[in-house]
């Protein structure tokens, strides 16, 4: 089991908790709107030859809210500031769901901040068909259950989210949902200008990963993302029998894909 630490650093005008673990070239992970899930098997695998850097988004866990981050674009600007302060640019990034949206925003602001970018079922662009699940008008249970296609086939999901929720877990989820509501309530989990500005991203190889049965952000949002990134090298991989969390539902395939892409 790789060792990982959580440290709080004063940076970019705030106190930011950052999880670090593994060895090798730094790899930035931007977690999803429910928060950092904990050290999963895909972390374990990737940490074998990369140093994972996982900032805890302001407003989550030990990172206090930053009021000046009013939307996901400004979240991206915040992370850019952090990377510059830490001298980590250009860095590889994997962004999950809203974290993927944030990575895309960062690329529009400064595509040189990244060397390569992996977007895992990112919100931020409306799908061509269907709707992004309105996570703010459903219960936590519904939201969580909508993130995997077949819970029985995803043992790590059951480990995380199965069974009775503890009060602490309930609180953590509410806190996470509060912060994501604060910055992504309106428009509903998307930025209408993002497709336009992604066209300006050049020289940033990007791999978009999706599960075909994604019930949170429909897979029909993948093409719009790919089309928007037309001026850079972009690939799209869709896993069958997979929901919103390829990294857990198809962990081995996911890790393999990422390793090959980031090599």
């Amino acid at each position, binding site marked *: 089991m790789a060792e990982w630490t959580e440290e709080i650093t004063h940076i970019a005008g705030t106190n930011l908790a950052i999880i670090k673990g593994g060895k090798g070239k730094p790899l930035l992970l931007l977690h999803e709107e429910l928060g950092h899930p904990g050290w999963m098997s895909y972390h374990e695998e990737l940490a074998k030859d990369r140093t994972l850097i996982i900032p805890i988004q302001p407003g989550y866990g030990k990172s206090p809210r930053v009021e000046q981050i009013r939307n996901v674009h400004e979240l991206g600007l915040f992370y850019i500031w952090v990377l510059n302060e830490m001298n980590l640019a250009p860095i590889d990034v994997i962004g999950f769901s809203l974290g993927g949206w944030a990575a895309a925003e960062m690329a529009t602001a400064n595509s040189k901040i990244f060397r390569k970018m992996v977007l895992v079922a990112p919100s931020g662009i*409306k799908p061509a068909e269907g709707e992004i699940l309105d996570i703010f*008008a459903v219960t936590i249970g519904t939201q969580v259950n909508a993130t995997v296609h077949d819970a029985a086939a995803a043992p790590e999901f059951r480990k995380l989210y199965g069974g009775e929720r503890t009060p602490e877990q309930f609180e953590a989820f509410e806190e996470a949902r509060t912060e994501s509501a604060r910055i992504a309530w309106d*428009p*509903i989990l998307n930025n209408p200008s993002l497709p336009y500005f992604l066209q300006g991203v050049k020289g940033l190889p990007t791999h978009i990963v999706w599960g075909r049965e994604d019930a949170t952000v429909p897979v029909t949002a993948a093409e719009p993302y790919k089309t928007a990134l037309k001026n850079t090298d972009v690939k799209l991989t869709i896993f069958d029998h997979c929901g919103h969390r390829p990294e857990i539902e198809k962990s081995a395939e996911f890790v393999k894909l990422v390793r090959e892409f980031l090599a």
Partner: protein
Amino acid sequence: MILMYFTERPYRDVPEDEVIKNRGFFGVPNKFFDREAGSRLYNEYLDEMVYAEDVGFDAIMLNEHHGTPFCMGAVMNVEASILARITKRARIVLLGNPLPTFKNPLRIAEELATIDCISHGRLVPGWVRGAGSEQIFNQANPAYNRERFEEAHDLILAAWTRPGPFRWEGKHFNYRYVNPWVTPYQKPHPPIMIPGVLSPETVVWCAEHRYPYLGLGTALSATAELWNIYGDTAAKEGYVAGSENFGYLQHVFVAETEEKAQELGKAHLFGGGQGAFSRPEHTLPPGYNSKEATKRLARTMTAGSGGFLGVSAEQLGRSKDKEEPSGNLQQVADSTRRRLARGEATIEEAKAAIYKSYQKAQDGLQIITGTPKTVIPKIRRILEVLRPGVFGIFQSQGPVSLEDRMTSIRLLGEEVLPAVREIGKELGILDPFERLPGSRPYTTGTQREQLISLDALRAS
């Protein structure tokens, strides 16, 4: 014909000098608002409207303006709500809610639906882009004015007609759960009417939507032109426009004797009247006008027209082929105001300039004042030219007593309305409730209906 009673519900107690000093009604500091007067006036205006229904008006018209003693209907839906309950027959015509100023158009959909229900289906909701001052007052970005108007319009109609719950993700409005538990009484939705002052864009939009267009006292020749634009657009859309597609608002004040009428009629110019609605910087904030309109405006400004031309009826009423002599109402108002601003004119001089134009205003039909006998022929001229299915009568704006206002309503009801109905019948005028606007198909290549009478126009 639908005969409508309208008053701006002016705060008649505002000191005229303050309006003139301020060079416009909008922006007179609200310290001049007195609650006793306000309370009394709101209730008196409601009394007038009930009375108007009693004496035979088919409809009561309201409008909305913010932050101005010119019109107390800042939230006219308050008055509309009351009318829904205290009137029995008359239609309640709102011309109109300024859609771009609403930050929550879904609430307006609920509000109007509630009013329509309470009135058992007598609401005619109309919508406007709103004067420039409304954008400023309500912090509504003027550069997005038309977009917000159209999206709010679409959203309200969707809220009324599309079964909920549904999501709305537009450019300016997002709603995640549209499922209003009040929808209008009238199905599929209440009839919509759009008022305007000669924006061709608006006229075309109306024709495309088959909404009747109501000209707000605009000059006859210019109005006639727009009627034709509407008619042409209607033909393109595949239907025949007729009198049911048009309305017109006309100031009319009636008294028992011509002397009295002449004496009281002047009050309509109070404070500078419509021409003093708001100062230029408030009338046309940046982005409010389309590029074409700005182009037109720039040309008219540099043609020595004497000042900034807001949405005043007079100025916009200039037709292309008739060069108005300098010294029409707006120009006079503008130049005197500019001199006033520079300290080159006194308030007294400004006032004098305003009232000097009284006769001209009557000649130009901006003001119609007289006994029933003398006003009816003037109204006839308008009806012969424009043939509007809806005709609104606009009460005096100035410090006329309640009693005199009520007398005017009575005389209108007793003598003028019946005569107007006769004229309407004679001219074959139908209103939007007698014939649904847009219901008559147009066959390409055929002649479309004559919407105006050029003969009558030339004669007038």
